């Protein structure tokens, strides 16, 4: 009398287009939503950072006009210069002028180089971008290596864990100096300054030496650039890679004990297949989040490490701009890093969405 008949599940409506939904998730509407959200975030960050730099300028005892003209300049010349730079205008007017210029790519003039900040950055960014990108990739690879090697049962695991802990607690500049002493001074394996020892570098198009070298078929340039990258990238990425590795190790070991891993073993899969096909994809989420978090730290590391390795990037540019109160240059670098942070975290979010179909951005 009480048979329930017919009826297809609720999932009937959603299961089939799953593939399409997954595609859309990364290519369609939600991606557009994510990008729109991040664009707004970037705008907010830019305004906030620009405002902070302007407040700093206001509070700073340094007078850019005086710094430009040198110590011998007369008071009237300094006053004239201040007027020329618009430094006597009201705070809001200065900030407003700066913000209005931003959408057109106008970051103002550097007081020091007397060129548009945008042009200066264009010259310094490729070196930094190459170093930062290498460092992030290295941090991920090392993170995976640390996760796997400390979770395997072998005699060195606990020693390695100790070494990693100690290494991770050392600041990037200390690691950089240590690396120079060992690998350059003592062993002479690797260069310790600059990006390249080759004089006739290919002239473009990206400014990234490894990429340009590959495009131009100049493998001498590529290998030389890679050698130069190793030590600074290692110094920057070591701490973050340990953090990433620890998160990854924790999530790997909890996913290994999960119900679905047990199901996979019950099917008769080998441990390796269970790890590769089932566990890994479920475990990368937390590690990716940690990577996103570490990016801010790594940017700070880049600026310092560039000093130690005489890397001709924005770290150098910043270091030269600060003593002379070159606020437009400082503001430009700050905004650039802020935007870089948003961009990298957006990429992390997209990767997480790809790894886990349940995530809707």
């Amino acid at each position, binding site marked *: *009398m*009480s*048979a*329930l*008949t*017919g*009826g*297809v*599940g*609720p*999932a*009937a*409506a*959603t*299961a*089939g287009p*799953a*593939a399409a*939904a997954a595609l*859309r*998730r990364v290519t*369609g*509407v*939600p991606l557009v*939503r994510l990008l729109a959200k991040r664009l707004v975030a970037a705008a907010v960050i830019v305004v906030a950072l620009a405002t902070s730099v302007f407040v700093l300028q206001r509070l700073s005892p340094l007078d850019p006009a005086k710094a430009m003209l040198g110590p011998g300049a007369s008071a009237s010349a300094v006053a004239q210069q201040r007027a020329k730079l618009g430094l006597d205008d009201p705070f809001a007017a200065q900030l407003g002028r700066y913000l209005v210029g931003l959408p057109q790519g106008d970051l103002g003039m550097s007081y020091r180089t007397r060129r548009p900040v945008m042009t200066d950055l264009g010259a310094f960014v490729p070196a930094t971008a190459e170093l930062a990108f290498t460092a992030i990739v290295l941090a991920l690879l090392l993170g995976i290596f640390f996760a796997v090697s400390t979770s395997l049962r072998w005699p060195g695991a606990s020693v390695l864990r100790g070494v990693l802990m100690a290494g991770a607690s050392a600041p990037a500049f200390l690691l950089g100096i240590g690396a120079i002493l060992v690998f350059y001074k003592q062993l002479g394996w690797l260069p310790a300054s600059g990006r390249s020892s080759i004089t006739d570098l290919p002239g473009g198009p990206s400014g990234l030496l490894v990429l340009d070298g590959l495009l131009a078929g100049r493998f001498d340039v590529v290998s030389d650039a890679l050698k130069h990258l190793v030590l600074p990238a290692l110094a920057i990425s070591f701490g973050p890679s340990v953090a990433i590795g620890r998160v990854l190790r924790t999530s790997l070991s909890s996913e290994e*004990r*999960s*119900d*679905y891993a*047990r*199901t*996979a*073993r*019950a*099917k*008769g*899969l*080998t*441990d390796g297949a269970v790890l590769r*096909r*089932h566990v890994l*994809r*479920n475990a990368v989420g937390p590690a990716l989040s940690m990577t996103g978090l570490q990016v801010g730290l790594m940017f700070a590391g880049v600026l310092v490490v560039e000093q130690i390795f005489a890397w001709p990037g924005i770290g150098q540019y910043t270091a030269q701009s600060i003593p002379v109160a070159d606020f437009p240059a400082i503001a430009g670098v700050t905004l650039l890093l802020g935007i870089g942070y948003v961009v990298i975290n957006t990429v992390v979010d997209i990767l997480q969405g790809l*790894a*886990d*179909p*349940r995530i*809707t*951005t």
Partner: protein
Amino acid sequence: MSQDDTTAAVATAPPPTDAGEPVARVEDLHVTFRRAGADIRAIRGVSLEVAPGEIVGLVGESGSGKSVLGLSLLGLLGGSPRTSGRAVVRGADMLTAGAAERRDVRRLHLGAVFQDPMTSLNPTMRVGRQIVEAAGSEDEAVRLLKAVGVPDPARRLRAYPHELSGGLRQRVMIAMAVAGTPSLVIADEPTTALDVTVQAQVLGLVKRLRDEIGCAFLLVTHDLGVAAQVVDRVAVMYAGRITEVGPADEVLRNGAHPYGVALMRSRLSLRTDRDTPLLALPGSVPSPADPEPGCAFAPRCTLAGPDCTTTPPVPVEVAPGHLAACVRDLAEIRAFADAVPAEEPPAAGTSSGATAPAAAAVAGTDDGPVEEPAAVRVQNAYRTYGVGSGIGRRRPLQALRGVSLTVARGEAVAVVGESGSGKSTLLRLVAGLERADGGTIELGSAAGAQMVFQDSGASLTPWLTIGELVRERLRSAGVPRAERDRRVAEALELVGLPAEVAKARGTQLSGGQRQRVGLARATVVPPEILLCDEPTSALDVSLAASVINLVGRLRRELDMAVLFVTHDLSVARVVADRIAVMYLGRIVEIGTADEITHRPRHPYTQALVAAVPDLGVEPPPPSGEPASPLDPPPGCAFHPRCPRATASCSDPGLDPRLAAQPGERTRLTACINLEVS
């Protein structure tokens, strides 16, 4: 060797289907884990055989070792325990064989189905790929999905697990388990996470697969009703040993061991007497860290004597193929089984005068307010959530679609329905944890509502002692400091917890004790109405029975109303005066407990009642999947599954409202095609 070995002979009796070599043979299995410096003796001498094509049920309270036995046969014991004995599957000892050999046995001869199909499937892999891993090819995967009754299988291959309903997910698990036609499938609580109508379908599927492909099943379940429906033979486990094994009918109807008898007695069914308290098994499962030297059941056994506590009893054959490990002779045990137990105060649903307020309250459910004071009055409540639908757009999910319900002072009302029907949402609205989007909710007095959750363990702050947790409520209720200690002690005593518990922390208590703490905390300042959200669903039969008895006693002594959410009709029947049946955000039928369980009138209520597994009940024919609250079908939301549906039932203009039949006062039904007898 050790004394335990004397129990080794249990279950070597020939299975009914003597089709040659057993597919699996467990011989004197011992499994001991090491945890926090103590030996955890999970299995202490179990022997059991599974014949080809046989369905063997493994029943017993939680912690008795059922899952460890299943995992031993799969060769998947985690936590590197010490083992002795043998667990042989198709000639290979899954305890000692090499990794590669065990893998081969798993791949070729074994299948596994676990309790929670959501976590047991890989959430980031399409179900198609997961089935192909076991089945070998996509065509075979499609064939298997068809065989386990998944509609539109080719399309489902592309789905991720979270895109399927619970029932479909479990079918996918079963399809993987029977891929490659294994000799034996280990199914560990395969229906526990499912709704009762879906459970009936899955059990039917197990039986059908056995008949069609001839594979044997080891079906682990704590639900004796489930065992009664499908298994050929039952083994009852207690504290790491088998107490009794034999043909299902024999063991379940004519138990020959005091434990099996007590277990059967404490289970709830639609025939459980509502007028006497439930026969809770006293005490609890012994700690596996500190096992009894003799019969493990002795501390809880009515028939225990000095002869029970020295050596484990030897299993003896009491009937053909039916063995029991107890020192008493059969006549004595049968006499115990037939004895009427000592009188206790009546169970929950039977407070005196319960029907009078019930009748009054019913009159108020749909026909505007009544004069009687009510503990809570819900009128036309709506609740809609916005949910991400997987493609980023937020869709409205209608959890409640116009619910009216009045609970009279001191009355107990149970709300039953499948997962997603809106039961918990209704409770949260009454508790004031969420606001309704439409309609009104009035509480009768300032004493308000207090809530007890499904898993009280999770709701106990881990760093506070139980005393502090209970005292917290007193402080927020403004009870003077001087009185608080006394009130805490009283509250703990009332829920039957020893006073020392006040100094313990949540993690140190058992599930049943934690549930009691939840009740103590909710009632230390007696509320007008006690709200219970599935407080027994995570508990064993015996513990569940004692918690239900306790709710009834608290209700009487503190004169509270109770609103009790459960998916289990047999629980609803004993705790409540009235039962409200929900389907997709609506109450489709409401009436007295007996009306709903014995004379259901709405087609959905009838399906629910028929699906409750029990002895001597034929499993109902296959039924449809529950519909989604994301898009409730138009007209009567039940029409796609309704055997009595007519063309007008799917008319979008139709809106069946709760209505009483002429001459009836207590029952309201929302259906346009009632069979009025």
